[in-house]
């Protein structure tokens, strides 16, 4: 566990850990940024962040991608050993998550106040923007922390929201924002629009890495991302409050201040999105930017969103798994772990003890009623305690031998779903499925399960020994 003061400190740690690759060769914004970042996602578990500093058309632009793009980098974000496995990171993430709330620390100034622009704002000149996927409708800011408050509960810090939402740069000082109905900011915007008021927002870019993870976490509406970041880093979370009362991370590179224009919608998209398909074009809200602040020689950060597995999937992996686990486990303490690593939890695997026949199906139904499950969880696989939900070989074994489709598949038609899921029919509505891959137990008397195979005596001891020897061998 450790706290990083700002984005630059984390980049320095990545570099020291040999997890930051400086690209000094000349690159073009299109297609090099997308091609190099997509390639980085194929480098495996030690994929480094990329820092480009020789960008065509700029004297000194700096662009960073793939910051969270490997389990090694993800572990470093959490202040853990870069060799930590997924399950260890999950358990540690959950342990800290349950220490909520931490503290907010308000200070009066931050390095991002060094340069201020409040006239003739042109985002195309201020930011090194580029197209990620060829069919994208424009240039997207896709790794922001968007900060907003609830107009109906303005002074309540706990319902202030820090979310990561895609932003299309529409013209010199206007952005499109994707606020699907399941997002917290959509609720706040609805409150503002019912009043006929704009919703003030602050957009922080190039952030120290824990707050971006928190912005990607579907925590409860009444939980503040900064207070969760504080328990994740083991120190109070430092922010600067702006004139509108919005709290902004101390460690950001750029801050854009503006308003979501009340009751206005404009064409936005398409954008190559997390399911691995383009999102289509919708009428989404519009943000007007009034002021931009940034550090001297700012570093711009963006994330490649393409066909999984990409950096985005690391961003949404444990941040999605842990809250669902916490919420389901508080109802069903028999639930041991949740793996929502796949496509933002459109498919997820739940490991549970089974109290009696039919219990696993109830666990699956509970997942569907979590805040994230309402808009994402589509296929839920429930496995026994002897199956590691993070080991797909074991999960597939459970599906192979413990599922009889005649009684183990629940189909639930016409449920709410994120409108980016291309399987929806119509958009935002889908049939969901629970696969009960646990062994039937009384009073559910199906199948013919005899004695299950055990593991040879001494396997665990040998596993530890071989892991140490292998680590030494590969050093």
């Amino acid at each position: 566990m450790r706290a990083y003061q700002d984005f630059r400190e984390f980049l320095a740690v990545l570099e020291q850990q040999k997890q930051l690759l400086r690209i000094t060769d000349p690159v073009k914004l299109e297609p090099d940024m997308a091609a190099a970042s997509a390639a980085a996602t194929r480098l495996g578990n030690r994929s480094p962040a990329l820092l480009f500093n020789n960008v065509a058309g700029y004297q000194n632009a700096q662009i960073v991608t793939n910051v969270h793009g490997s389990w090694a980098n993800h572990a470093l974000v959490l202040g853990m050993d870069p060799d930590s496995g997924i399950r260890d990171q999950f358990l540690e993430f959950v342990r800290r998550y349950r220490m909520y709330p931490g503290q907010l620390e308000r200070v009066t100034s931050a390095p991002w106040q060094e340069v201020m622009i409040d006239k003739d704002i042109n985002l195309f000149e201020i930011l090194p923007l580029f197209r990620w996927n060829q069919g994208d409708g424009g240039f997207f800011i896709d790794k922001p922390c968007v900060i907003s408050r609830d107009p109906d509960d303005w002074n309540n810090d706990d319902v202030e929201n820090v979310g990561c939402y895609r932003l299309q740069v529409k013209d010199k000082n206007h952005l499109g924002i994707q606020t699907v109905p399941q997002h917290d900011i959509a609720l706040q915007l609805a409150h503002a629009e019912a009043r006929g008021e704009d919703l003030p927002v602050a957009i922080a870019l190039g952030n120290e890495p824990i707050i971006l993870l928190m912005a990607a976490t579907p925590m409860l509406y009444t939980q503040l991302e900064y207070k969760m970041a504080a328990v994740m880093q083991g120190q109070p979370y430092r922010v600067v409050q702006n004139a509108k009362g919005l709290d902004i991370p101390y460690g950001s590179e750029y801050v854009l201040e503006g308003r979501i224009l009340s009751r206005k919608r404009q064409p936005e998209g398409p954008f190559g999105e997390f399911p691995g398909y383009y999102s289509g074009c919708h009428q989404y809200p519009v943000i007007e930017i009034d002021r931009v602040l940034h550090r001297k020689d700012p570093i711009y950060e963006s994330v490649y969103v393409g066909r999984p597995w990409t950096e985005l999937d690391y961003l949404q992996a444990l941040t999605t798994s842990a809250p669902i686990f916490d919420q389901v486990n508080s109802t069903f303490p028999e639930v041991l772990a949740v793996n929502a690593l796949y496509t933002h939890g459109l498919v997820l695997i739940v490991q549970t003890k089974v109290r009696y026949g039919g219990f696993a199906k109830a666990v699956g139904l509970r997942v569907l009623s979590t805040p994230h499950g309402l808009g994402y969880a589509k296929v839920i696989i429930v496995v026994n305690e002897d199956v590691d939900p993070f080991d797909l070989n074991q999960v597939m074994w459970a599906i192979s031998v413990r599922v009889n489709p005649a009684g183990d598949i629940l189909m639930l038609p016409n449920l709410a779903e994120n409108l980016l899921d291309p399987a929806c029919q119509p958009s935002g509505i889908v049939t969901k499925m629970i696969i009960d891959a646990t062994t039937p137990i009384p009073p559910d008397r199906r199948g013919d399960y005899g004695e299950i195979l055990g593991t040879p005596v001494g396997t665990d001891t040998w596993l530890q020994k071989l892991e140490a020897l292998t680590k030494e061998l590969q050093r």
Partner: protein
Amino acid sequence: MSATTQVTAVPVCPRCRSTTTEVRGVSPVAGVWTVYGCDTCFYTWRSTEPEENTNPDKYPAVFRLEPQNLPKLEIAPTIPPLPAKKT
């Protein structure tokens, strides 16, 4: 300034073929690229991108938009009703 960045005539939008386009920005190092944008469908493109992104005749059919269809796009989130004014 190179031929690709001369701003003698702002081009038609490659995606919706509207003429409501403007220069959004030029490269800080002069003459490397120009960014254009459309005020009808809000498509944005850079002069140095492939023709599939810059030329209306080469733009992929699957991504094209008709200006008259833009108001029919799905609205998300929906806009809530305003409370009735007190009389």
